């Protein structure tokens, strides 16, 4: 329904979502239990790391994934459970003595994920992480439009030409 809003209204609305989502972080997930959530978040945080700019963790991607598994993607729950169990077995084999994925060092996590990156499980977590990070903030990921800011996607409701460097140049402008 935000289509009739001005850009300013929309920015305010987005800011409200951000508040709602921040409030969520003290509440519980709809489907994940906290242990599984911590493990999946560790994986998501290697897919889109929090570095100079926000990544999956700061953008709240787990809220998107939880919402998906509680709703539209219910049929993916088994894949998550089975895939995570297999990944834990792989972790135990690669890093004897380790207790969980979240407890591994960053370098170990990357090594583990490289070993499973062709699996349906990893591909599914990657898909959910990316959808959450770059999808509409109302689904719980992409907090403060972190994903859109990363790629330079403005998400204004309308634009006027020139749109980019080359059409500005062709029109005789000198856009930076």
């Amino acid at each position: 329904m935000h289509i009739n809003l001005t850009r300013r209204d929309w920015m305010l609305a987005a800011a409200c979502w951000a508040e709602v989502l921040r409030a969520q972080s003290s509440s519980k997930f709809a489907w994940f239990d906290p242990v599984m959530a911590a493990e999946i978040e560790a994986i998501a945080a290697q897919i889109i790391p929090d570095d100079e700019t926000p990544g999956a963790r700061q953008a709240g991607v787990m809220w998107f994934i939880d919402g998906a598994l509680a709703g539209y993607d219910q049929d993916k729950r088994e894949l998550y459970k089975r895939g995570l169990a297999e990944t834990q077995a792989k972790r135990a084999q690669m890093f004897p003595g380790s207790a969980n994925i979240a407890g591994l060092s960053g370098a170990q996590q990357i090594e583990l994920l490289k070993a499973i990156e062709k699996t349906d499980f990893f591909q599914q977590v990657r898909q959910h992480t990316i959808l959450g990070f770059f999808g509409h903030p109302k689904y719980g990921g992409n907090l403060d439009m972190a994903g859109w800011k990363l790629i330079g996607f403005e998400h204004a409701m309308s634009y006027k030409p020139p749109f980019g460097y080359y059409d500005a140049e062709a029109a005789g402008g000198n856009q930076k």
Partner: protein
Amino acid sequence: MSDARYRPNEVVDFIVVGAGAAGGVMAKELSTAGFKVVVLEQGPWRQAKDFVHDEIAVMYREAFINDHRKQPNTFRKTPNEPAKVQPAVEYARMVGGGSVHFTTNYWRFHPEDFRERSELGAIPGADLRDWPITYDDLEPYYTKAEWDLGISGLAGSNPFDGPRSKPYPLPPMPVKSSGVLFERATKQLGLHPFPAPVAVLSQPYRGRPACIHCGFCEAFGCEVGAKSSSLAALVPLAVKTGRCEIRPNSYVRKIDVGKDGRVRGAIYFDAKGREIFQRAKAVVVSANGSETPRLLLMSKSNAFPQGLANSNGNVGKYLMFDNGALVVGLFEHPLNEYKSIVVTRVLHDFYRSDPKRGFYGGGGLDSRFDYYPASFALGLMPPDMPQWGSEWKRAVGQYYTHMGGTLAHASCLAVEQNSISLDDTVKDAWGQSAMRVTFKNHPDDLKAVDFLIEKQKQILETAGAKKVWVDASSVGEITYSRHLMGTCRMGDDPRSSVVDKWNRAHDVPNLFLVDGSSLVTCARQQPTETIQALAYRAAEHIGEAARRGEI
């Protein structure tokens, strides 16, 4: 004018099944000609305010398209292998149909597209045929479609186009950076780019506003009504007559036939799942190239034990799919392709078939970058890079605004075994037999795509791209399509075609099939204008025939 409401047992003049690109034309033309029309549309009737910028809902949760969970289809490449449940066809399930969410490329077929068999001869492994009509027969209706809907373009700018009786009603849309680069490079290569003809208003037209360049165009509905869809441009005019009732959420399961072999009406499920029989003097099926043959095959009767209008067994055969690869490039400066419409420049230099190439076909190219943030990050980064992690994240951050590309719209030959049939082993949510799709590209389809990819790479490199790569999801044999064509072919011979040159079923005098199913060839894709022009032509003829008592 109050909206028309008909009781099911009232015998209306026409039922139109499907309110899409063609069904919208039929509804508007027949109702403004004075006929009582009921339109049965399986999807909802969305309004402009329902169209939001939500990539998750629209691209990943099947908000607008056929819901493959409720409407599964099965797929196999050839009749020799078992069909398995696997989404293979996609169409927009709503009033307005695909015209609501399409890219808006609005191309006329070329004059030679209607007579390729005569010009090129037979193609082994395919059934290439001439159309029973010529470009000149259709030209007045191409023009009518362009003016009725509101098309923006520049007449005379495409040297390969056929003759036109009138220019476009609206000037071209503002060129984007992808279009500037495409035009610059193709001109340097001695080719003939031209401003894209598109079903979008570049200026206000007939009470509708101009495009606001919001960028959520392909796959999305237009929130201001500037996309020239059936929903925005035609349905309101049909409703305004007071003679046309649009019934959304009405899923037709059978066309009913009397002992005399004439159609008597349609049986459908309403939103609550109740079966309703609407009576009519004649039925127009505009349900798209996959659902139209399925509905005919589901409409078995004593008169038509093989399915309606299928005495020769041709219903569902010769299915043609969308074809063509997307090639993208990374440029030094920002293009910001996420703004405005998708396509602003087109090239038809490689359109025509040239026997010297050693294969049938060719294609039209357009300038575009039609990826949204999530779909881009998921699948369009160069395949030689990591697909997750910090290096990937850094590249994703740099690439999105700096990419542009070109999509080929390539030929796809009609092959008899490529088809829509019924799969009685799988049922949809209404208990009806699922659609079974059989499709395997003719080898020449793939050769045309490979030929075009080389041209596309050359164009992007000439345009100065720092890196060029092919969208991996768009190459190889096609197993999924949004263009659904050819399954109830038009022809003069009732033994080898399903409808005559006026879209009337050879077998049934009061049944008309008006959509992509009647296409004899698919030219170089982008079939919407031809589908709508055929609908305008059929509607005029059907109206005249009805008035003379010849239906």
